[in-house]
Structure formats: structure tokens, C-alpha cells
């Protein structure tokens, strides 16, 4: 009963963050900028090239505003309707469909489009995306990435290290966290260096954005992490099963050690009286004979 009670108490700590969905209501132009930064930058740039989603520079000239506003309300609905342009976008994004954005009203969509239009005219938009160096990853990057992932080196803005919730193939004996997904193949899943970099810069899932919105990763931290993920993906690693097995093996070993310790501490415990007595006497008698 006590165990059940305990589970009851700590349970909400796990699911409350998951059901928590940030849905800001935006009313002003400045807030359009904030909204874009918080919700769009993980997939889109303005003039920074394609990430998961297309580059939004001059998007208002490519398609009429009414269509765009409608699309923003529900991208999936447009695809379901069989809109040819929406289908084309889907194909370009390798079948990744833009999610419904919480709090996206037609008014907000208008504000966003106006803001994108204005930003497109600038020589360099503030949303040109994170400029991640194209230099090839070095072994040093990979090692630094691993140190950051495992928490051996602290993240500069105080965010929790990845290993708290994630694991990857090579995370070591204890296998890392299993609350979030396994990141062994995240590099492929998030379509490479640039897209994953943008994702790490502004993570889009509720849990990640909640955790990292105020403690964002820095560019010099993202690069080593990318190097690590790229390296893991290139080695063709499967999900981290060895970590889990290692964890159980470790547990088994510790259990044996504890039992051995108990055996030493309680060496003088009561075991039996009669049987040892008989055995002892039997040894005495037989010993005398031989």
C-alpha cells in the first residue's frame, strides 16, 4: 500500500509537464516577433535557407495572403483537402507536416505575415537562422559533444545536460535517461546539420521548449553536440540497447555485493542449533575413527 501511495505522489511530476501546453495569445506586432522566435524558428528561417520547413523569405509574394492565412490555421486540413501547393510543400519537406500551432488565430497569422514581409526586405533578417559553421567536425568536437551530453561539462546557460532525459548509443554503463527519446539516430531524423542545429537552438516540443526557452544552448555548444550526433548516426548505430543491458548488469552486480556485505555484517546471526550440533558431534566421532 505504501508503495502505491508513493507512486501516486510522485506520478504527477512526470505527466504534468507533458500536458502543459504553452499557448500564448499574441496581439501586438512586437509579440509577432516573439511568437515567431518561440514557435517557428526551429523549422523556418527568413533568408537563411531551408530547414525542415521552407525558407519564408518573400513567402507573401509566392502565394496570396488569404491562402497563407488559411494554411496557417491548419496545414493538415489543407493537405487533406488535396490542395496541390500544400501537397507540394509536404513532398519538399519529406512528408513532415507542419503541426497546428496553438493560439494561431487569423489575426495573428496576418500579423506574422506582415512581420515576415517586413523582415524579407531587410538585407539580413534577425531570423536568418543560426549560422552554424560548415567546417568539418573534428574528433575534438565529438569528445566535447559527449562531455556536454553526459553533463561532464556544464551547459553555459545552466540548462540540464541531455543525459538527464536522453540516451544515445555510447552513453556508457548506466545507459542515460529514458524519459525522452533515444538520440542515436536523431541526426537523420532531423535532417542533418543545419535543421538539427536550428532545432537545438529553439526546440519545438513542449517539454524541450519549456526547459530550454530560458536556458538556450549556445552556438559553440550546438556544434559539438551536432558533431556527436553526426558521428553516432554515421557509425550506423542502433538505439542504445547496450545501455539498458549494462544498467541491469550493474544492478545485478551491486545486488550481489550488497548480499555479500549483509552476509558479513550479520555473520553471527541465528541460523540453526540442532543440525550443527549433530554435524559437529558426527565429525568428532568420525574424525576419531579415521
Amino acid at each position, binding site marked *: 500500500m505504501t508503495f502505491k501511495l508513493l507512486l501516486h505522489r510522485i506520478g504527477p511530476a512526470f505527466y504534468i509537464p507533458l500536458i502543459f501546453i504553452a499557448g500564448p495569445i499574441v496581439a501586438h506586432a512586437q509579440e509577432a516577433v516573439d511568437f515567431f522566435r518561440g514557435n517557428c524558428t526551429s523549422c523556418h528561417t527568413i533568408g537563411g535557407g531551408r530547414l525542415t520547413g521552407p525558407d519564408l523569405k518573400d513567402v507573401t509574394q509566392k502565394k496570396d495572403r488569404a491562402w497563407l492565412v488559411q494554411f496557417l490555421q491548419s496545414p493538415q486540413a489543407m493537405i487533406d483537402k488535396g490542395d496541390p501547393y500544400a501537397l507540394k510543400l509536404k513532398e519538399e519537406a519529406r512528408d513532415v507536416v507542419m503541426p497546428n500551432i496553438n493560439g494561431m488565430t487569423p489575426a495573428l497569422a496576418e500579423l506574422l505575415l506582415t512581420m515576415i514581409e517586413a523582415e524579407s526586405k531587410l538585407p539580413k533578417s534577425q531570423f536568418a537562422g543560426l549560422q552554424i559553421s560548415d567546417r568539418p567536425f573534428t574528433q575534438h568536437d565529438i569528445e566535447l559533444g559527449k562531455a556536454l551530453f553526459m553533463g561532464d561539462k556544464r551547459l553555459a546557460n545552466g540548462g540540464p545536460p541531455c543525459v538527464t532525459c536522453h540516451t544515445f548509443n555510447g552513453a556508457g554503463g548506466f545507459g542515460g535517461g529514458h524519459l525522452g527519446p533515444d538520440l542515436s539516430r536523431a541526426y537523420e531524423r532531423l535532417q542533418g546539420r543545419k535543421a538539427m542545429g536550428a532545432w537545438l537552438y529553439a526546440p519545438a516540443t513542449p517539454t524541450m521548449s519549456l526547459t530550454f526557452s530560458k536556458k538556450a544552448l549556445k552556438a559553440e555548444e550546438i556544434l559539438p553536440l551536432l558533431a556527436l550526433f553526426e558521428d553516432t548516426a554515421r557509425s550506423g548505430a542502433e538505439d542504445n540497447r547496450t545501455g539498458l543491458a549494462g544498467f541491469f548488469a550493474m544492478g545485478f552486480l551491486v545486488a550481489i555485493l550488497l548480499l555479500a556485505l549483509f552476509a558479513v555484517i550479520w555473520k553471527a546471526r541465528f541460523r540453526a*542449533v540442532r543440525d550443527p*550440533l549433530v554435524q559437529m558431534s558426527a565429525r568428532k566421532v568420525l574424525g576419531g575413527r579415521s
Partner: protein
Amino acid sequence: MDVRAQMSMVFHLDKCIGCHTCSIACKNIWTDRKGTEYMWWNNVETKPGTGYPTAWEDQEKYHGGWVVEDGNLHLRSTSKTQTVFNIFHNPHQPSMDDYYEPWTYDYQHLFNAPEGPDQPTAVPLSMVTGDLIQIKAGPNWDDDMGGSPVYAENDPNLAKLNPEQRAQMFAVQRLMFFYLPRICNHCLNPACVASCPSGALHKRGEDGIVLVDQKRCRGWRACIAACPYKKMYYNWQTGKSEKCILCYPRLETGQAPACFHSCVGRIRYLGVVLYDAERIREVAGLPQDELIEAQRSLILDPHDPAVMAAARHNGVHDAVVESAQKSPTYRFVKDWKIALPLHAEYRTLPMLFYVPPMAPVMAQKTGSTVDNISDDLFHDIDEARAPIEYMASMFGAGNSGKVRYALRKQKAVRWYRRALTVGDVDMATAERMLREADCSPAEADAIYRLTSLCTFEDRFVIPPMHREQAVEMLEDPLAHKQGVGFGFMEGPRRGL
């Protein structure tokens, strides 16, 4: 002075023939139920021997009873803190093997067996699992020193003897043994009651019988480890502990407990004694060699007017005080001082006293005649086949003086009676012996009468139990007036 009454017992070991009738009487009444097969609330052991459960006197193993540390009494087995940590696992429990695995025989096979060249046999079956078992031990496995090289030689009481004494004890021509019947001692300072985490054990106010409340018992088994006499038993069927109840339903109807009633050797005596409950704590914590005398001093003179007044003030019924005045226990323990508690060093203040047995006389061969009279008339007490230290380990808390006193007095009474009735020894010698043994001829006569010629009424002086008053200690009977009896379950009403 906090005077209370206690049903107290004396077993006269010189009379015990080791027939186990007491054990069987008890078994048939109380422990023939499932889960109690292995229990013997009354058992008879052969000494020297390890007893039941095996080597129960070895408190280094079983951790029973009390110890004094820095002037404070502590249970050896547990403490308040330890109880919390050991609540689901109380250590120092005798295993089934230390008691014995109870068994019966497949008697039906004797009738059902198909015809064959041999007589059919009845194989032993475990009464716990029902499987065929190899019998390894029983509750009286070392009866009459059976298996001596194992059981008798490992008697914990032999620890006090030097190797020479030990060797002599087991020399064939000197071999001796006696029987030790044991029931719950209904102690004044019971370790079992002190150890119970559920408060299920209690000592009855009116007669001091220690009982387990079967409703409150949670089966933590702390009592089993705590009782140094191993007279608490765990019923594996009900999951509760059980113990000797001194046949209180029989006592309440004026009958002696079953084991007392059935004893063929008439070794058992039962009577009320009055004691001073105020001094229990003090007496239980005294140095070991003072324990016997101090415990004796706890028992109060029921003829003393001050004691009688204090008893009445405490709600002890006059009939109980009157009964205490006739108590055979009081005469053995206080007047004659020949009955001693078993292992007083466990500091539970047991209320069962034993008259130590006279070891067989060591005969001397002088010329062609075998002579068993020496010049020193008490010589065979110290030269007995069982060394006095061995007896003292059991009945004197290591103090051999108390045992020697009891044995000398018994010896003197024998000589006195021999001079009187047989006449082959002269009376002057007998009277000299009485004087030396601190015994008057009148006392010798009384000892002789209560030992040899005792009737049922002499041996068992059972007071009226006055349950109607005893219940007032716990609750007001008038509160339940109209609530009990043979009346209506509901009040009578008009109509159908």
C-alpha cells in the same frame, strides 16, 4: 507495598519418573490443532541433555531473557528501536529443525497393503507437509540420555564444569540423569510481555497468568525470541503466537491444570502466593548471586496483617489471601526454602520452582561389602554423580549454596524418616543431621507429609477465582447491565 496474587507452582524433581503423562494430557487438550503439532506447552526433558527446542538454555544463540547494562534492564533479543527495524524479521527464532518436524505414521497402510512376503509397515509422514520424512529429531529425542554423545554432552549447563568433572559425569559407572518437566513459568518480569510490539501479551491482574490475546497478536514473533525458556510458540496456521495458559478455564472452575491433575508421580504443587509488585524492577536488576534470595523476598507472608491489609486494599479477595495461607508453594519456597527457580539468571523472576533432585548415592566398596554410609553424612551431596555446580547452573543461578541447602535438608529429612520408620540408623545421628540442615523435627515431618503423603487438596490449593471481581479491573460491569444474559436480543415490543 503493591500486593498482588500469583498462581505459583512447585515441581518436585525427586519424584518425577519421566513418564510424559503431563505432556500428553496437555497435548490432548490444547495443542492437537493444525499449526500446533510441534508445540509442547508442557514438555519433559532429560538432564543432562539439550532439551526442547535444542539447547534452549544457550542464550548466546537464542538471545532470550534480560541482561543488566549500566544498571538498566534490557531485553537481550530486542529493544524499542530494534523492534522497528526487525518488525518484519525477528532474528533468533528457533527453526522447525530446532524444535522438530512433527510427524505421524501412515497407519492405513497396515490395513490396505496388498498381500506380500513381508509384514506391511507404517512409514512416517510429516504433519506439516504430509510428505514422507526421515525423522531426525523429536521433542524428547534424547530421552533417558538417548544420543548422549550429541545431546547430553552439549547441555549448556555443563559449561560451568571442568573437563575432569565432565568426563566423570559421562563415565559409565557414574552415569546419572533426571527429568525436568517444563511449562510456562508465568514470570513476574516476563520478557515475552515486554517484547511484544502489539501489546498482545499480558499478565492477568488477579492471578498473574501470562496470556496472549489472540485478537491483538500480529504474529511479529518478538516474544518467541525474548522468552528465555522458549515457551512461546508460533502457530503457523493462524499466524499467531500461543503459550501455556495454565489451564485457566480449569482453574476458574476449581480444577487443577491438566498436567498437574494427570501427574502420576504427584510431583506438582500449585498455590497462590502474594508478592510485592513494587519491588520487581529492583529485584530483577540485582547481581546474579543475590537473585534467588531477592526473588524469595518478593513473596510476602500471607499471615502478616500488614500484607493482608495491603492485599485487601489492592482488591485481592479475602478468599484468595486465605488460600495463599494454605499454599503449598509458599511452604516449599519460603518456609522450607527447598524449591528454587529455574535459571533465575534470565531475570524474568519465574514463578515455577523446582525442588532439586537427589543424585543417586555413590556407593563405596570396603572389603567385600558395599557401603553407602560415610562418616560425613552429607558427603554424597558434594560427591554426587552430578556435580553440585551442574545443579547450581540450573537452579541456583550459579550459586551452589542455595542448591546445597535444599539438598541437605532433603537428605536430613530422609535420614530422620529412616531412623523413625526403619530404625537401621540411630536417631541421634538423624537429629544431628536435621540441626545441621537447618530443619526442626516438626518441619521434617511437614516436608515428609507434603512430599510423600500429599492428597489432591494438599497439592492443589486453588482459590475461588472471583471472575466477577477480576473483570472490574478492566471495566465497570454495571456499564453492561442489561447488555448480557439469556434475555432478549432486542427488547420486547407489542405486536408482531
